[in-house]
């Protein structure tokens, strides 16, 4: 035992000598879906800063991101559900002042299924998806599905609905879409990070849902597109508001956000008006306080400055990492809105956000 402590002490000492005084660690937490992108950014950014700045991002889910951000245990949160008015009021009341939602990437939710003999590309419309997840359509041979897919031979399998058992930003986006396209869904279920599902079985996490769908012939579920692609699960195309059948793609997702946005970007772009946009898409937001010093997790001006520098890098140069990882770039309009919000961020009254932006040349 004593030997072990000596070993720990020695290791700590060794790390201490390597570490220089100016090193900064930034801590963020939240949504699972953008985690691969954000951690890749963290990797890259550590190289960009010659190992000086480490960004520790832990994927604990959107709900966790919002909560830890509100509890001020993290420097930034990350969520697929924006801060609602109640949450903003609560943050203001707790002395945090205004909180911003900065879109950092876009994600789409695809309808995944396991039908022997049916490949990717089964067509769904909003009403059909809602009826299936409400438990009103119970077999794949249902005329409503057949009408959308005249050329596909649908096996007469019973439908097994699979949904997330934990709360999730993915669920928020998916149920928000259903709420917009189906009055019955709106009435009975509504939308949130976790809902009371009328039917079906729960899988834990994107992986859990993907796993159950993969293992169950006749299953239908929903996943972040990244997970469906990585796990090689068949997914459907969706008829959007303009009546076009849209194949989920990075481009169609970016287009979904190509709609008039409010200055605070608090909008769910599901059921988009964009004619070529994929209808079940949404932003992943980075959550930040206007007054950085109001966040207990940020203790020095250096930390605040490095955090701002990282964010500016993440929404500009860092976006180059997105597409190779199957994430969508944020549209130009969103970038400008982000700049506007960053410009308002302060450290003890000092316009640190504007300074960092100017120094970066924006």
């Amino acid at each position: 035992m004593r030997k072990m402590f000596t070993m720990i002490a020695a290791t700590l000492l060794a790390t201490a000598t390597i570490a220089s005084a100016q090193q900064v660690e930034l801590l963020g937490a939240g949504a699972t879906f953008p985690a691969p992108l954000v951690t890749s950014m963290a990797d890259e950014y550590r190289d960009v800063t010659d190992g000086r700045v480490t960004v520790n991002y832990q994927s604990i889910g959107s709900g966790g991101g919002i909560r830890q951000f509100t509890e001020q245990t993290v420097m930034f949160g990350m969520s697929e559900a924006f801060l609602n008015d109640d949450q903003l009021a609560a943050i203001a009341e707790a002395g945090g002042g205004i909180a911003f939602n900065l879109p950092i990437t876009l994600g789409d939710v695809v309808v995944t299924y396991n039908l022997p003999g049916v490949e990717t590309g089964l067509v769904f419309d909003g009403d059909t998806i809602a009826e299936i997840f409400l438990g009103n359509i119970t077999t794949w041979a249902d005329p409503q599905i057949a009408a959308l897919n005249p050329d596909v031979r649908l096996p007469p399998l019973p439908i097994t609905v699979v949904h997330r058992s934990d709360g999730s930003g993915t669920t928020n986006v998916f149920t928000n879409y259903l709420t917009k396209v189906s009055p019955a869904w709106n009435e009975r279920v509504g939308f949130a990070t976790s809902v009371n599902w009328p039917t079906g079985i729960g899988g834990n996490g994107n992986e859990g849902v993907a796993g159950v769908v993969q293992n169950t012939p006749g299953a239908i579920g929903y996943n972040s597109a990244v997970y469906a692609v990585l796990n090689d699960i068949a997914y459907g195309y969706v008829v959007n508001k303009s009546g076009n059948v849209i194949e989920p793609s990075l481009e169609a997702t970016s287009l979904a956000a190509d709609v008039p946005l409010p200055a605070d970007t608090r909008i769910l772009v599901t059921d988009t008006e964009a004619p070529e946009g994929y209808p079940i898409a949404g932003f992943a937001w980075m959550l930040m306080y206007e007054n950085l010093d109001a966040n207990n997790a940020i203790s020095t001006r250096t930390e605040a400055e490095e955090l701002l520098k990282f964010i500016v890098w993440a929404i500009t140069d860092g976006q180059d990492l997105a597409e190779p990882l199957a994430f969508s770039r944020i549209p130009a309009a969103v970038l400008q809105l982000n700049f506007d919000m960053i410009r308002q961020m302060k450290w003890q009254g000092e316009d640190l956000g504007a300074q960092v932006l100017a120094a970066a040349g924006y």
Partner: protein
Amino acid sequence: MDRTLTASELIRRPTHPIYRRLGDRVFQVVVVTLGLSIIALALLLAEVLLVEGWEPLRRFGFFGFLTGTTWDPVRGVFGTWPFIVGTLITAVASLALSFLPAIGVAIFSAEYAPRWLASIIDTIVDLLAAVPSVVVGIWGIFVLVPLMQNHVYLPVYYWAFENAPGLLPVLGPPAGYNLVTATIVLALMIVPYTTALARDAIRLVPRSQREAARALGATRWEVMRMAVLPYARGAIVAGAILSFGRAIGETMAVAMLIGNSNTLPFTFFGPAATMPSVIVNEFREAVEDLHLASLMTVGFYLFLISLTVNLIAAWLQRKLAVGGRAL
């Protein structure tokens, strides 16, 4: 070792009254404080759970929350009944599944196996009792679930689909993550625990008991059944109840494998949830205060159940020990 020398040395130690009286006083205070800190910790845990979970209790009532069957974060309606049912089903089933084999291993290792084999078995059992929950969980996800899915759940489901459609609602959709999987894994996890407790109880039975029975011409099994097991009964049953308590509190492996459904009724092949699994799954994601508070309340009920189980085990141990004065 020269005992006389040691003793005389001890006698020659200065025993100033202050050193004696103050020393004893200080020692007792320190030791009792350390002991009390555990009491304080337990009470603090209950208090934190109760305070942070107060709102749902106030809103739904103690029994309302207990028997509420709806867990709906959107509408803000919470009840813990589905999770209590899930917890009890998995714990009872896994104990039922593992009890006899566990006793078998205990008897074999304590009475039958040659010494070298017994020591190997004991080492393995003790070792397995410490295999981390997450390690069992990762095995469950990547090995057990696909195995059961392909060779048990789907074949049975298809068979029932064709031959006994009446069974389908009971079987439920054949997802790999379900009550049966969770129960099997739980049984595997508590087996070493039950075994170790039963083995120790059997070993503590005085040799004279066995010798008496053998002297009467009993076979080895008759010695076990008539002389040893009745004597160790109290400790074995108390051990089983402690294992039951372990099964109730087991978290990670169950959360990774049970499929997590909040809605009753649970089916064999369908997903379910237990009290710890719902806490671990939803605590990270709970945004609304009431949702988070409800998870704390579930924790509070879990505390009460755990307390009850331990009280019963302690009581049984005392009551059943009277006959044999074992332990």
